[in-house]
């Protein structure tokens, strides 16, 4: 179960100054960016592909494969997605605050591999401290000649811009992020093209990678594809960051190997549910992921394959734990309400569907629920994602709408009794619950 620390090693061993360029270079930093300058694009793409590195933004797509899609036509751009907004997720914030140069070196490697001379780091607007830390790191790198004209004394030019978002979850979707970066409303673009690598920022080939993904790149190159792929046994390669939150004794970010079980995560690493309460359910991969329950999923392995086979996903690595006192209607309302608030409004099923689901949930919690309400919610959900399958079928441009129905499926599969109890009682059976706290 003990895995080697990769992206969190420096901040763990040098907590006082892991964010400085001096510490970064003293611990081997920027050596791989220098080395990458001597490699061809094909060599770099092949190396990253062979390492098995998967995108850590939530979709778990092969990073090397994504790079290989880069279309002809220049300039090309690199964009780092630091718009971390999935409820439960706070790993990229730690990587940016505690080890920004690691992300910068990964960004430089990405730019070299994709022949880009301008990289943008899109940080969500609420992350002022991470943005300041990243900007300070960028300034340090410029001062050292690691960014700008002729980086590391080569003839390769790379400019880097830190861009601040302004509060919109949807900008984490890569085509919405690109629109936002262009100064537009953050609405996802129609597909195809499926990848901005074909047509992206300013209609040019663009690679969009997540903070944690690029933070792994210096290590992929240092260890070599084989070394990185061999870090942990099994098909999932490398370590990954889990953000643990909710009703758990030791919340926080943990760098873990794929393949430990949920039981180990929640009870050993997380210290279990506080105050002697029982575990009721948990969300395995961010608010978009269908829920897991102790009676069925505790001993599953945390791998992409096992999680997908059980009808959910590891997603952004956010695990949210709920104890027995949690009202499932209230928790569901909070998540569906999030998606209703963050829907960009382009597609009717998402814009209308999430809003109606939220209203029905609210009336159930407020004691106005009707016996047909669960069936009604499933019908509305079916309108957003036909068939209520996993992975969800899409009626919309992006997956936001279909994500919103994940907790509704939990109500159907595990907590229909609780829906019924609310309707029969004419209110919430959980004493502590004070619903209508947040309206609008």
């Amino acid at each position, binding site marked *: 179960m003990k895995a080697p620390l990769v992206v969190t090693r420096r901040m763990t061993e040098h*907590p*006082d*100054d892991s*964010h400085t360029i001096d510490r970064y270079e003293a611990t081997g930093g920027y050596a791989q960016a220098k080395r990458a300058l001597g490699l061809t694009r094909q060599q770099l793409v092949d190396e990253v592909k062979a390492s098995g590195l998967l995108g850590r933004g939530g979709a778990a797509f092969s990073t090397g494969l994504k790079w290989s899609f880069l279309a002809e036509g220049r300039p090309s751009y690199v964009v780092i997605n630091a718009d*971390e*907004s999935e*409820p*439960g*997720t*706070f790993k*990229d*914030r*730690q990587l940016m*605050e*505690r080890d920004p140069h690691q992300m910068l070196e990964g960004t430089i490697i990405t730019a070299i591999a994709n022949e880009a001379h301008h990289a943008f780091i899109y940080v969500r*607007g*609420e*992350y*002022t*401290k991470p*943005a*300041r830390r990243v*900007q300070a790191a960028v300034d340090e790198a410029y001062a050292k000649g690691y960014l700008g004209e002729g980086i590391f004394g080569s003839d390769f030019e790379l400019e880097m811009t*830190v*861009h*601040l*978002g*302004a*509060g*919109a979850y949807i900008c984490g979707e890569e085509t919405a992020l690109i629109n*936002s970066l262009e*100064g*537009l*409303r*953050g*609405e996802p673009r129609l597909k195809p093209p499926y990848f901005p690598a074909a047509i992206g920022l300013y209609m040019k080939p663009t690679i969009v990678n997540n903070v944690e993904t690029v933070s792994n790149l210096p290590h992929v190159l240092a260890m070599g594809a084989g070394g990185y792929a061999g870090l942990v046994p099994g098909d999932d390669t490398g370590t990954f960051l889990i*953000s*643990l*939150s*909710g*009703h758990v004794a030791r*919340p*926080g*970010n943990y760098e873990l190997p794929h393949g430990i079980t949920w039981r180990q995560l929640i009870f050993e690493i997380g210290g279990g549910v506080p105050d002697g309460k029982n575990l009721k359910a948990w*969300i395995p991969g961010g*608010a978009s992921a269908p829920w897991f329950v102790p009676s069925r999923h505790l001993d599953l392995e945390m791998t992409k394959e096992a999680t997908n086979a059980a009808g959910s996903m590891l997603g952004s690595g*956010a695990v*949210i734990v*709920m104890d027995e006192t*949690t009202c499932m209607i*209230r*928790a569901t309302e*909070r998540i569906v309400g*999030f998606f209703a*608030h*963050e829907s*960009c409004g382009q597609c009717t099923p998402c814009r209308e569907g999430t809003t109606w689901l939220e209203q029905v949930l609210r009336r159930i919690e407020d004691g106005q629920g009707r016996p047909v309400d669960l069936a009604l919610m499933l019908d509305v959900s079916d309108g957003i994602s036909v068939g209520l399958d996993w992975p969800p079928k899409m009626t919309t441009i992006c997956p936001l709408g279909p994500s919103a129905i994940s907790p509704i499926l939990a109500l159907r599969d595990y907590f229909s009794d609780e829906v019924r109890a609310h309707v029969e009682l004419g209110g919430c059976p959980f004493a502590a619950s004070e619903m209508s*706290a*947040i309206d*609008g």
Partner: protein
Amino acid sequence: MPLLYLAMTQDGYLTDEGMEEVARWCGITPAQVFAVASFYTMYKREPVGRFLISCCTSISCMLLGSDEVLHAIEDASGVPHGETDPEGLVSVEHAECIGACGGAPAVQVNYELIEGVTPEKARELVDWLRAARPEVLKGDEMQQLFGSRRSFDWAIREDEGAVGPYPAFGPLGTVGREGES
């Protein structure tokens, strides 16, 4: 987008004149600027108080009592969420996930983060803002005074902070340091 922040820095919020000026600079219509401004929650198109208190009420914070924290802030300030006090000092809002789930419940004041906030500490925070009226709001200082458990440890002190209800980020010219204005 940086220009919209710049306009907010100047006027405290996005005025019609500010958006028109941005439109002139960009060579687009004011309606196009308004379309962008209205998409994002951090662009405020109505006057905001000097201190914008954003209480996260998303799932992880909710599980650990964020609604009680929000009620405490509303009660102590007399300002319901979504509104500003008559003096123009304090605005209160509830926010969607601000990425501090390991230190839930979390609150931001002018986007400077405080984690592990209890209803009692939230009341003290409001009283402190009213009494001290700091020129520069620093996350570290507020965390020490009003916070407890954080998402992760952070040993390094920052002496930068926010000077208004918009993000304190260098390129926007809004980063405050003690003794500067």
